[in-house]
């Protein structure tokens, strides 16, 4: 989606120093206009408003693709041609990457009458949906920057609300054709791969193997708990995707009916035994109380979780119960471990440990990425394993990363859709250097 102004000409600007009420009106106006448009056109409407309000020469929206490693500029509505693959812009080393990492808008002003480029994060609850890019005839003042930030934040809501009606956003997110198994696998994942709350930040990342391996992850936040699961279905391709579907369906059904971890495990096991054609799924289920931080988990034959505390990574050694679907009598034990504010918990699948992934020192990498937001930390761990396998995974690689802030925080400061105290540093900042500066204390 790119909307251009009339020759970059400056349109009439709203008078400066707008009140909170007029800003609220502007936001309401944005949402109203987006709502009035067809789902595929809601972005263009917002872009047109920015062209009118700020005299922008051009406005476009870039959506992050499934891998989180690139963005795609969505074509203008009406010209969307699904026969062509979306043009992929790799993030590594770009201004876009810095804006996603830091979750702060960036202004690039080359002076001498050149258009000023502004890139703002389009983020909701830490889920980096995409970016808003504008070119203005002159550097924006504080008020204009606020409007851009607010519109970018509103845009996140607009994208999330409208993507359930149209495939346009789906199309933009896939930069290569998906296999049937990969398509099924994507639909099993939570709609947002990252989430921030006062007590924690969580993010998951999954890189499918060339022959999809049946990994999936899930999380949900209720009033009193946050629950996470990572599962790995045996086998490959559609067979594995179907087993994964069965497992995730059973876990979600039990969870939504209010079942505790033991009940969720029991139902997943039963579903696999009854419908899984002798297949099985390994899994790790976790539930953390948002009231007292008490942490419960079940290990169903799954790789063990890692916990980083004070810069040291330790594997948590669980009591191991059998994977879901083994037709021998067995039960699932709910265990506990200690989670303290400042801890980072990493859950993974065996694709992170097997084959060439062996050469990656995960503990070391977890320490070195400690200053990154879970979203970028999870992606960095996955990227290391993908690189070790020369880009071709034998098995899916999945990571879920959870930062526990503690129960003493009940609010998060996130006017722009992201908690800036949690954001990663830009590439090249001290925070990315192993042993570099710590993120500011909360």
């Amino acid at each position: 989606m790119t909307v251009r102004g009339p020759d970059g000409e400056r349109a009439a600007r709203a008078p400066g120093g707008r009140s909170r009420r007029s800003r609220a009106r502007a936001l309401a106006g944005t949402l109203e206009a987006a709502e009035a448009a067809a789902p595929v056109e809601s972005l263009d409407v917002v872009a047109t408003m920015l062209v009118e309000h700020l005299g922008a020469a051009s406005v476009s929206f870039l959506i992050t693709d499934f891998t989180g490693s690139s963005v795609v500029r969505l074509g203008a509505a009406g010209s969307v041609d699904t026969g062509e693959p979306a043009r992929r812009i790799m993030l590594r080393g770009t201004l876009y990457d810095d804006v996603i990492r830091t979750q702060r808008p960036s202004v690039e002003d080359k002076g001498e009458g050149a258009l000023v480029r502004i890139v703002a994060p389009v983020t909701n609850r830490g889920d980096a949906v995409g970016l808003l890019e504008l070119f203005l005839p002159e550097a924006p003042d504080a008020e204009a920057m606020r409007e851009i930030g607010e519109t970018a934040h509103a845009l996140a809501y607009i994208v999330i609300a409208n993507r359930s009606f149209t495939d346009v956003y789906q199309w933009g997110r896939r930069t290569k054709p998906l296999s049937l198994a990969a398509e099924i696998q994507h639909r099993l994942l939570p709609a947002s791969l990252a989430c921030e709350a006062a007590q924690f930040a969580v993010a998951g990342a999954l890189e499918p193997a060339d022959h999809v391996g049946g990994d999936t992850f899930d999380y949900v936040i209720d009033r009193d708990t946050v629950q996470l699961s990572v599962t790995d279905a045996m086998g490959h391709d559609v067979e594995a995707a179907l087993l994964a579907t069965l497992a995730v369906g059973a876990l979600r059904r039990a969870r939504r009916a209010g079942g505790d971890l033991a009940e969720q495990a029991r139902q997943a096991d039963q579903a696999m035994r009854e419908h899984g054609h002798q297949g099985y799924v390994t899994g790790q289920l976790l539930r953390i109380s948002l009231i007292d931080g008490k942490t419960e988990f079940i290990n169903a034959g799954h790789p063990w979780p890692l916990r980083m505390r004070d810069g040291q990574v330790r594997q948590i050694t669980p009591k191991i119960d059998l994977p879901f679907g083994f037709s021998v009598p067995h039960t699932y034990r709910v265990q506990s471990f200690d989670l303290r504010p400042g801890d980072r918990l990493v859950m993974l699948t065996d694709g992170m440990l097997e084959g060439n992934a062996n050469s990656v020192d995960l503990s070391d990498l977890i320490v070195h990425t400690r200053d990154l937001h879970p979203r970028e930390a999870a992606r960095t761990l996955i990227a290391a394993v993908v690189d070790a396998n020369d880009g071709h995974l034998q098995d899916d690689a999945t990571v879920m990363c959870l930062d526990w802030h503690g129960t003493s925080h009940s609010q998060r400061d996130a006017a722009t859709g992201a908690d800036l105290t949690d954001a990663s540093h830009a590439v090249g900042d001290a925070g990315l250097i192993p042993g570099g500066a710590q993120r500011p204390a909360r």
Partner: protein
Amino acid sequence: MGGPSVEVSASGWCLVARVSGEMDYVSGPSFGAEFLELTARSERLIVLELSGVSFCDSAGLNVLLQAWRQADSRGTVVVLANVSRPVRRVLQMTGVDQLLRVYDTAGDAEGDFGC
């Protein structure tokens, strides 16, 4: 290293099968067929000697479990011996070592069952 292979030797009521190759989704069907033949012989004990197996993924694990299931239904015991470190780790992680007993050597397993 050659492809998947299973070499069987019998002593008394016990079979020792020396398994070589990586146990994954490529070799799974081949090992599955070999193990089916083994379990059909209805001996008292089958020892799968795994010193020649350096890698086992979920598909390999499934083949081991299938063998265990088939044997169990015929009253045959399947145990594992001489398991390499990475494979032992997979067995431990999935809890499969609770179903398939792991011995240091095939001789230890045979001794235990009086073969």
